[in-house]
């Protein structure tokens, strides 16, 4: 059930109405049921997977929590009789046991994810190696199920598992409530990845229908539809056309494709998240924001703090920190400091753990070398900009343009271009082709290629470009206003007729200019592939 399908709207309407009708006590149970129905409609088999993850996480977090609780009581009692070293030993012994429990559950669930998602990728690589060494043997690729949103719910529940292990949140006693946390339907398909502490409160609370909450939620959903249907899906055919026929579209087209994709991806992804968060909001549930106007970032590090935020912070909290400050790493750091000097020694932990994070981010995005190279590319760019920091500082101390509008604009454009270049790995078939096309962008660049008629050959008509242009202006305008607070709140302050006109106009825009239905057969086809 795609967010932009009619079925989803019906499903949502039924869920919202029933949610506020059922007794407040069982609202959360109803949500759990809705989530499972949502999953069941996608495919009944998927339920087994999500339930397995839920139950395993439940069991292990309960065990860890019980251990923790009994240990604390026990420890308090014996604390006074022990000296410092003994206390330390006992504590670390307990921690080790908890760690082991946590790891079993973690590896089990990541194992499922890995097998589902990466088996064929691994087989492909093995076959390549077999070919490279001259063997004629080949492994057959297998048909794996890839349960909907498995990457998202696995990460969300693993975050919870680690939080319980760390003691930053206490384990949920009610299996049903945990199941709801894992399967909360708005964020099941494409995130955001919520933390238990953030989501749990409003998720399990009792909610009374509130006019403002519900309308705000619906307005957010409408905005998401606008981004997805009017902009992203309208633009998609052109992106696919350019990236699909690499012999035809070179030089300046590569740049066009790159920029189109930047817009398409932004509209598609943030639109989907808007629908997810808006849906949760209509139910009175607060979900963490996943984007903060990422294309206004002035450097790539900032960009990653503003794009897909929940994923980035997940990687930082659960991979970057643990790796970079774990004891072995500190030892490595000390060792290298001794042998290679202060300069390198300081950098070793950061480089190693950043590499791990970006490698993992790449792998997480998809089972292909494209994404891995893309992740590493991000790593390289971030590290370079990190090393250049002293230079920038020196530069700004000499020339004071830091706060000039034009310089800021330059920084923003630079960051967007940089990210778009990296994202080319997303578009092209394989890594060598991406590099080739990247080169072509410079060697074959000929601005005269881009005539008006050439643009029409990309599968979009003049009217499409006009709509896209108008849509983009609206996007930018809204983003600019948004910097000073919620746009919806600002509109809500207006008089009723003004509100009505604004939202009705947006609704009509989606209804008429949206790319859906039989009139858009080609996009229909693209949907079906995914």
């Amino acid at each position: 059930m795609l967010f932009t399908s009619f079925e989803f709207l019906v499903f949502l309407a039924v869920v919202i109405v029933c949610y506020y009708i059922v007794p407040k006590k069982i609202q959360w149970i109803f949500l759990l049921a809705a989530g499972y129905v949502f999953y069941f409609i996608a495919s009944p088999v998927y339920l087994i997977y999500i339930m397995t993850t839920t139950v395993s996480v439940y069991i292990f977090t309960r065990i860890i929590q019980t251990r923790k609780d009994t240990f604390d009581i026990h420890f308090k009692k014996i604390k006074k009789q022990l000296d410092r070293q003994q206390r330390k030993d006992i504590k670390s012994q307990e921690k080790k046991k908890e760690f082991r429990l946590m790891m079993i559950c973690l590896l089990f669930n990541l194992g499922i994810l890995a097998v589902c998602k990466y088996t064929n990728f691994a087989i492909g690589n093995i076959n390549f190696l077999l070919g490279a060494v001259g063997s004629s043997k080949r492994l057959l690729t297998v048909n794996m199920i890839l349960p909907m949103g498995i990457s998202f719910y696995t990460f969300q529940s693993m975050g919870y598992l680690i939080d319980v292990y760390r003691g930053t949140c206490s384990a949920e006693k009610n299996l049903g409530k945990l199941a709801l946390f894992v399967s909360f339907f708005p964020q099941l398909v494409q995130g955001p990845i919520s933390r238990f502490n953030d989501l749990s409160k409003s998720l399990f609370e009792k909610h009374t229908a509130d006019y403002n909450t519900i309308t705000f939620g619906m307005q957010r959903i409408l905005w998401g539809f606008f981004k997805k249907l009017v902009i992203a899906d309208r633009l998609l055919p052109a992106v696919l056309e350019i990236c699909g026929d690499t012999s035809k579209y070179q030089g300046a087209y590569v740049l066009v494709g790159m920029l189109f994709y930047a817009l398409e991806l932004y509209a598609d992804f943030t639109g989907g998240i808007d629908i997810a968060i808006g849906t949760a909001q209509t139910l009175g549930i607060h979900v963490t924001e996943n984007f903060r106007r990422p294309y206004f970032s002035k450097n790539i590090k900032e960009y990653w703090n503003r794009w897909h935020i929940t994923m980035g912070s997940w990687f930082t909290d659960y991979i970057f920190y643990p790796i970079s400050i774990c004891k072995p790493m500190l030892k490595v750091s000390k060792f290298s400091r001794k042998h290679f000097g202060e300069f390198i020694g300081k950098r070793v932990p950061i480089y190693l753990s950043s590499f791990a994070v970006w490698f993992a981010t790449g792998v997480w995005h998809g089972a292909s070398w494209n994404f891995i190279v893309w992740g590493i590319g991000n790593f390289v760019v971030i590290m370079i900009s990190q090393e250049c920091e002293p230079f920038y500082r020196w530069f700004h101390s000499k020339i004071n343009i830091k706060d000039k509008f034009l310089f800021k604009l330059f920084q923003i454009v630079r960051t967007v271009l940089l990210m778009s270049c990296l994202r080319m790995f997303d578009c092209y078939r394989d890594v060598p082709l991406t590099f080739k096309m990247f080169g072509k962008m410079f060697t074959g660049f000929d601005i005269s290629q881009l005539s008006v008629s050439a643009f029409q050959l990309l599968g979009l008509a003049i009217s499409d470009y006009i709509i896209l242009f108008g849509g983009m202006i609206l996007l930018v305008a809204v983003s600019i206003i948004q910097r000073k607070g919620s746009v919806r709140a600002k509109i809500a302050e207006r008089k009723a007729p003004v509100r009505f006109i604004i939202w009705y106009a947006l609704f009509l825009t989606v209804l008429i200019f949206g790319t859906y239905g039989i009139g858009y057969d080609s996009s229909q086809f693209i949907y079906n592939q995914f």
Partner: protein
Amino acid sequence: MKKKIFTVLSAVVLSICLTACGSNDVKVIENNKDDKASESSTDNSGETSKLKGYVFEADGQNGKVSITTEIEMNDILKQLGDPDNYFEAESCAFKGLDKTYTYSHYEIQTYPEDKKDLISCILFKDDMIKTAEGLSIGMTKDQMEEAYGTDYEQKGAMYVYKKDSSFLGFIIQDNIISSIQYFSDALEQQQN
């Protein structure tokens, strides 16, 4: 250390068990958006020169002409030369014509799509020509099964073989092939 290895192994084995018994043809709908463009662009590597499905070899003006359904008639027409007989039928209400080109031993029908004429059917008219696999009108059902196997679908007297998106049908009367026709999905639907 041993314990650790055991932990890892058991976890991996468990997860493999779980995924392995579930594998089947369920469609992948993971909406991890970032996968999108890369996957779709992989399909565009096929060559276009080779025809898919059942192919009929006709004698053209300059040697053999390979024809199959769902390809454009214009190119074929150039190679085959003018037909002996040509008929066009306007589709009800819509613009575009269903066309029939009759040559001495066979007949080709087209239907309009996107300003192009695509071949919907190739029909044998006598026993002077053969399919690429060597069958002609007048041969027996056994010969047909020998050449094409028994993996056919039977519709009345018609035996239909499917290959990619093209169909090859034999009408058999009293064990003898009385008609041979290549046809496409577009036509298949109409006759249901």
